């Protein structure tokens, strides 16, 4: 899962990136509204964390422009004022959730995971895919009730596939949602990781469609 953090305070931005990284997100950060708007409108993110009190372009304006441009990722706004006027303005502009400063990082991470899960159409915190179960709040994936031992990168790929089960996910889409903007994208390593995942979760669950991408098959 890729996440965009638009926050002008460098300490808080770093803390958020760290906490969300631990929660399974690949994070990009933007320190002002213009940069944030640009990244959000041009990159594929699964989530944006947007501070309303930004220098330059205000957060509400960034959000409005995203929505006008058809950017539909879930957006969690951070407000310092914490009054309802801020919240209402944020939701009217298209926000999906809010956190009032000062907030606990783990709370923001849980909200972020909930938003991503809901955006993929899953109402419950635990998403099922055949024998697999993803607890989106804990970031734990189990197979037939047994916790799988996965690396961070494997977890990200499998979470994405579970969120978008039963449809073809291209390698480009997958890489768009796995790497932050600074990382080198590498289809080879995705293939390698998919191969390792097949061994850990059992053959037959992840199909390769030649020239198209991967499908996580999860018949009900």
């Amino acid at each position: 899962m890729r996440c965009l953090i638009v926050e002008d305070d460098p300490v808080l931005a770093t803390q958020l990136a760290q906490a969300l990284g631990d929660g399974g997100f690949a994070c990009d950060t933007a320190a002002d509204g213009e940069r944030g708007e640009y990244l959000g409108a041009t990159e594929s993110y699964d989530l944006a964390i947007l501070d309303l009190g930004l220098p330059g372009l205000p957060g509400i304006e960034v959000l409005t422009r995203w929505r006008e441009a058809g950017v539909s990722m879930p957006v969690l706004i951070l407000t310092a004022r914490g009054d309802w006027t801020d919240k209402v303005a944020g939701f009217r502009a298209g926000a999906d959730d809010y956190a009032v400063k000062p907030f606990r990082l783990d709370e923001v991470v849980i909200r972020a995971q909930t938003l991503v899960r809901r955006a993929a159409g899953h109402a419950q915190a635990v998403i099922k895919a055949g024998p697999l179960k993803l607890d989106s709040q804990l970031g734990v994936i189990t197979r037939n009730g047994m916790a799988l031992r996965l690396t961070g990168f494997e977890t990200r790929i499998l979470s994405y596939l579970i969120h978008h089960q039963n449809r073809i996910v291209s390698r480009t889409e997958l890489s768009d949602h796995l790497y932050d903007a600074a990382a080198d994208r590498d289809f080879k390593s995705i293939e390698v990781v998919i191969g390792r995942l097949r061994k850990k979760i059992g053959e037959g669950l992840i199909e390769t469609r030649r020239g198209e991408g991967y499908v996580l098959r999860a018949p009900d």
Partner: protein
Amino acid sequence: MKRPRFFRDSIRARLIGLSALLIGAALVAGYLTIAAILDSFITDRFDAESEAVADALIAGATVDDAGRLVAGPAPTDPRFGIPLSGWFWQIQQDGRVAAKSASLFDNVMTPPEADFIGGAGTGPGGQPLRVLRHTFTLPDSNSVMAVVVSAPRAEIDESVSRLRRPLAVSLSVLGLALALASVLQVAAGLRSLDKLGRDLRAIRSGKADHLPLPPVSELRPVASEINGLLEQNRRVLSRTREHVGNLAHSLKTPLAALDNTLPADHPGHALVARMDRQIGWHLRRARSSGASRVLGQRTPVTPVAEDILMVLRGPIRDSGLQIDLDLPPALAFAGERQDLEEMMGNLIENAVKWANAQIHISGRPDGTDRLLVRIEDDGPGMSAEDHALAIARGGRLDESGPPGTGLGLAIVADLAALHGGQLRLQRSDLGGLAAILALPA
């Protein structure tokens, strides 16, 4: 002299009083002037009549061979024949009466030995007379002749008063008409002021946000000055809010970072939470203190409730709550949207937090200038003692707890009080808490 309170307090009374005074004075002066002119006109007419009689007597007078004055034909006016009518004439030679009118009967007039017109005299019956006396000479005599003619004062006075009465009546009618006109004029003039007053009341009650420019040019500067004041008031307030918002942001962002650098069990978390609550409380107070003084605000309740529910749709969906919204569309709060959002937001959020399955939001007008908004849930509710405790203002600032919690109801009670309203907590029929907001409408 101290004027009565009524005259000092009322422009209407002052204007009407002043114009009544001036109209009265002008009419009295007019009456006196016209009456004096009529008096002299009528008296002059009587004098002219007497003069004509005197001239005729002089013209008819001759001297006989013995040098005695002989009167010519008597004046034909029959009034000179009625005994003691007051209409008298006599001609005399060297003070001796030579001839006289029949009306004098056996009396004679004894006017002073001088020529005059319009002198006062007294007739034989004691009646007052207006008298003229002319001396003359005749060609064949050295004697001093005199003619005396009188008219009865009573008849003159009666003629005068016959004219004065209709004059007084018509001037009184004119006075009444003028007084009525001035009352109408004052009323018409002050209607603009009354309208200005109504427009101001409409602003105060939130039904308008500025004064319409009055059609009369004299009130336009006043109205635009008032509009300018309202605008300035709004600007100052929104600037203050902006500063307060910036301050909140610049304090709370590092506070958030600080909180997250502390280890989980660090006692500093409690301090951070306390700082957060203090900042929030005081910033909110600073932001809201001007609110009740901003005139001309009117916020419909339904859109605010819908906005709040939009913000809370996530938690509502997650816990499967059923929300009943029962608000008349015309229900509006006489105050700023931000404040209504803050009050309803906190109450509905609270209800969402505690409700098991349903929340009921209803509202209705309460009299002409109040409204009631009721937010009920079917959660556990509170005890009666906790009701009072929950809305005790500022009483929970220093209590421990996670940041941003525990103050909701106190904030709402405080805001409602700033608007002259009230927050009441009761047990709801649904089983949980019923929060009732009474606000100006």
